[in-house]
Structure formats: C-alpha cells, structure tokens
C-alpha cells in the first residue's frame, strides 16, 4: 500500500509539472499586469518600469517560470503582487473554509442522494421514482448562482432566519453554531447539483445490484427483505459511488467560485476570482497548483478508499 501511494505520488510529478507549465502560459498570456493596474497618472514611466523590474515581470516567460518553480521547491509560494502578503498565507487562510464548505456540501449531498437514490431504485417506475428523478434533474439543471440568490432572498431577506453571507457574525465570536448557520445556505447550493447527479448514480447502481444473483442467495437463506436491501445490496451499490464522489472534487472547486462569491465565503474560489481580477499571478498560480493537487489527491484517496471498501480490489 505504501509503495502504491508512493508510486502514485511519483506519477503526480510530471502531471503537476505539465499543469504548472500550461498554467503559467495561460496566466501570462493575459494582457494586463498588476503594475498597469495601479499606475497612477502621476507615476512616471520609470517608476512603473522599476516596479515591473522589481517584480520580475520583464524577464522572459521561461525565466519567470523557472524562478517561480525554484522558489516553489523551497516551499515558498512567493508574495502576492497586489497585497504583498505571502501567497502561502493568503492561500493557507482560504483552504480550510473551502474544505469545510466542500465537505459539508458533499456530506449533505450524500445524505440526500443515497436514501433518495435507493428509494427511487426500490420503487422503480412508480410515482415516487418519477418524483425523485424529476427533483434530481432539477437539482442538476438549476444554475447555482441563481439558486444562491433565490435562497438568500427567501431565507435571509424575507424570512430573516439565516445570514446572507460571510463565514461568521461580525463582532463577537459567534462560535460553532454561528458558523454552521452561515454555512447552511452555501452548502445547500453546492450540494444541490452534486445531490442531483448522485441520486441518479445511486439509483442506477442500486438497480444494477438489485439484479444480482447474490441477493437471491440472501433471500433464499430467509434473510428479511429489509436486510437484503440495506445490508447485502446497499454496500455493493455504494461502492461505485465512492469513485464518482472523487470526481466531484474539481466540480466542487469550480462551483465554489460562484458560490463563495455569492455568499462571501472566504475560500479558495473567492480568492481565485479576486486574484484574477487583480492579475495576481503568484496567487493564481499557487491556487491552480493547489487545486490540481487537491484533485489528484482526491483521486488517489478515492482509489485507496475504494480498495479499502471493496475486498475485490487491492492496490499495491
């Protein structure tokens, strides 16, 4: 297992390197750089030039890349070009909020999707099934920014029972309960799409499992139908779900951009947008890299989880 993980990590390296190169090219193709953004009419071209020079913006692209990579290897992500804060800190501060929100959304989505998917499969082609299917389609079809705004309008503005955004109440710590309260709406928004997709997946998986011979075996042993579905079938049906949960990570990160923006959730997504708007290359690069690592890591974790859950598959 250890060697397996080590080997997988080794494969990450070229992939990540490729990603950073592509990334670097894309980011630097962008017209506009942070100096231009803040040039004051009073600032003379020489100062602007000096500033660019100081930030290394005049080097050839590959030199910039090598420099960046070099500092990266020392664990240094550099300094933000707009706020001069260390990128590592900027990004570091944002990881937890995004991870908590993402996990909350994932858990919420699964809590919704698994039971619904199973019920829908068990009641295949009944009204309940159609209802669940319809709901899941709506879940996948509704743009999340729209859902977010609508939820804010309903729950925060009209009913006033939930905060409109942010991660905690200003002034006063608020504590755990307060955080949960702030997390509800964004988590719902993020979870909706995932849940929609997962319901369909769980349903399909369950339908497949329900056809399997071993359920007939269990029934022929006199096992109660409840346990046939909830013990014998469920575990098999959920196994493939593990793999697709891993696939949600990139989607989750993407969805976070909009959701965090709407709900002022101070996570990776919001930072991405802000950094993009201010052409903060070091931050954008770091964010992309971290996101890529997160995606690759999630894939690896998925594989490990899967092999832990499915006795047929052994990695290593």
């Amino acid at each position, binding site marked *: 297992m250890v060697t397996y993980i080590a080997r997988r990590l080794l494969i990450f390296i070229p992939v990540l390197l490729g990603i950073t190169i592509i990334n670097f090219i894309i980011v630097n193709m962008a017209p506009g750089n942070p100096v231009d953004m803040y040039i004051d009419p009073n600032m003379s071209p020489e100062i602007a030039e000096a500033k660019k020079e100081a930030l290394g913006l005049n080097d050839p692209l590959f030199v910039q890349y090598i420099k960046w990579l070099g500092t990266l290897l020392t664990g240094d992500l550099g300094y933000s070009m707009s706020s001069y804060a260390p990128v590592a800190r900027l990004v570091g501060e944002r990881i937890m909020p995004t991870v908590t929100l993402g996990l909350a959304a994932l858990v919420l989505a699964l809590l919704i999707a698994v039971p619904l998917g199973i019920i829908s499969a068990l009641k295949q082609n009944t009204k309940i099934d159609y209802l669940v299917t319809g709901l899941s389609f709506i879940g996948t079809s509704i743009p999340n920014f729209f859902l977010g705004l609508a939820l804010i309008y309903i729950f925060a503005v009209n009913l006033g029972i939930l905060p409109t955004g942010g991660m905690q109440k200003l002034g006063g710590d608020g504590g755990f309960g307060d955080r949960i309260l702030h997390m509800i709406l964004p988590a719902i928004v993020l979870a909706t799409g995932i849940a929609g997709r997962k319901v369909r997946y769980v349903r399909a998986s369950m339908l497949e499992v329900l056809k399997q011979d*071993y359920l007939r075996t*269990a029934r022929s042993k006199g096992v*109660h139908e409840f346990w046939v579905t909830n013990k014998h079938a469920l575990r098999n049906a959920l*196994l493939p779900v593990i793999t697709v949960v891993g696939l949600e990570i990139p989607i989750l990160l993407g969805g976070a951009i909009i959701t965090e923006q709407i709900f002022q959730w101070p996570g990776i997504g919001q930072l991405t947008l802000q950094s993009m708007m201010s052409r903060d290359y070091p931050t954008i690069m770091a964010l992309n890299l971290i996101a890529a690592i997160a995606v690759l890591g999630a894939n690896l974790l998925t594989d490990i989880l899967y092999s832990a859950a499915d006795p047929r598959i052994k990695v290593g």
Partner: protein
Amino acid sequence: MNDLLEVDGIETVFRTERGEVTSVDGVSFRLKAGETLGIVGESGCGKSVTSLSIMRLLGKTGSIRKGEIRLNGRNITGLAESAMRQIRGSEVSMIFQDPMTSLNPVFTIGSQLVESIMLHLNVKGKTARNHAIDMLRKVGISRPEEIMDEYPHKLSGGMRQRVMIAIALACEPKLLIADEPTTALDVTIQAQILDLMKKLREETGTAIMLITHDLGVVAEMADRVIVMYAGQVVEEADVFTLFDKPLHPYTTGLMGSIPHLDGDDEETLASIPGTVPPLQNMPPGCRFHTRCPLATEKCCAEAPPLLDLGEGHRVRCWVAQGDSEAASPVPVSSAKGVTT
C-alpha cells in the same frame, strides 16, 4: 400423503412490459423425503421458475396464479412472507447455477455462512462460527478457519460452489433445490461436486431437486426425472425407465442429440429441428407439435393431458398415449424439416 413436497398444477406468471407471460403452466410433481428428482429441459422451459415458485422468490413481477405447493403437507402457496422466510434456508434451501455471482462479493465467506445459521438455528457468536467451520469442513474445504475470513473472489469456482452447498445445508434442510449446480464448472470439478452431493445426500437424507440440462448428470444423480418443455411437464418417470424407454418424442429427441462416449460413432446425430416457441406465442395444441416428427392433426389442435401410463410414468403426448386419432401420424407441414 407422506410426500415431502407436493406441487399441484402450479401456474406461474410474470408481468412484463409486453403483458403477462405464463412461464410455468400446470406443473405437478411430488418428491419423497430423501429422494432425488431431476428436472431437465431446454433453456427457458421453466425449470428455474418452478423452483423459485417453491421458494416463493419470484420477485415483484412474478406470482403463482394457480395450483398449490405443499411442503410436509402444509400448503405454502399462500403463506405470509414472514412464515416463508422461516422456511427458506431452514426447511428448503437452494443453490444456484453460477457460483461466481451467487456469493456477495463484499462479505466474507464466514459472515455469509453464519448469517443463515444465526437466522435459523438460534445460535450466536462462537457456536455459530464453529458450526460454520464444521460445514465448510464437511463440504471438503481444507483450512476452513482461514476460508471463513476470505472474501469470495479469492476462491475458485469449485470452492465457491462448495461454500454455496455449505450455506444451503447449514440448517439441515429437508429439501435442497440445486438449480444447475455444475453447469458453470469444469467436468473434473463437476465430478467433484456431484460426488460431494451424493455423499452429503447419504449422510443427511436430504431430498434433492436437481435442475439441469445435462442428461448425463441426471443419469448420474436422479431417482426420478421430470422432462419439461415450454413451461409444462411432458414426461415423468424413474430414471431407468426414462433412459430405457423414453415415450415422449421430445425426450427421445434429446436422448438422440447427445453424442455418446461409448458405443459407435453416429454418422449424424439425431436432432430436434427448430427452436422452442416463445412463451408469448405458444402454438395451439401440443406445444411440441411444431418440432415433432410424429405430430398429427390432433396434436396441432388439441393439447394432450399428462397421463400416467403405469408405474408413475407420465407422458404428455397423444401418440405415446396411443390415442386412436393420432395412431397414424400425418405429418404437419411445419414439422417436415429434415434433421441434419
């Protein structure tokens, strides 16, 4: 009425998208304690459905529309599901064709075995486990303690089928239904499994309903044989009578189709032309008449009954029953195919 199992004219139907299909149509037979009944017939003729009807495992779409199944004299056709669960696995148990898919891949052999023991024998923990290990040993699995904690994918097909047998016999059922238990296995492994079943049958006195399409297996194992065709029993006899003196043209055809290892090489094998008619579209009259070389006008028009021609040899054929109208066979157009 000391028969263990009495199946009386059952008719099993499935609801499908294209309407209702009758998979088993008026099947009756009996099975004495300790006896082995072979059921043979072509694919799709209703062998499995018959056995699943007995287990009442027809799923949501299937139901027994007519007839009665009595186990030890008790009618189980209308039994509540909970009572039926008591019977499954303890009084009647079943093993299936494909050992590769019949075991749940995510539970250990042990837990799948213990599950049924705990369910029916009212024992727990260590006792149950020990009993399970005993069962594994009984079905000829070496290192049973280790196998208990293995997952099914680690086992070969033959081993799995042994495990299935262990599960089936764990609660000492009076009736074991084996639905093509060796079809998926190699001949050498098949021989092992058949051997095992024989041995266990002697030890436990369990009655066996052995479903197969291999006449060799039937000849090897069965006391009595039922031949099914298109959802109906077409012939029933004790195994010697059947092989010596098959009466139904379908049975005769089947016997002729198998190449024998001993004896002379046939230039051509006898064969039954055509294929089984689909359930949704059964021909009128005798269901076999479309493929029968002896079919008469009557066969096309009137369905023959299943008649006992003495000593429990039952046949569903006008010709075999010596019906006067069918005495001189008039070939029916659709049956003139030359066998090749």
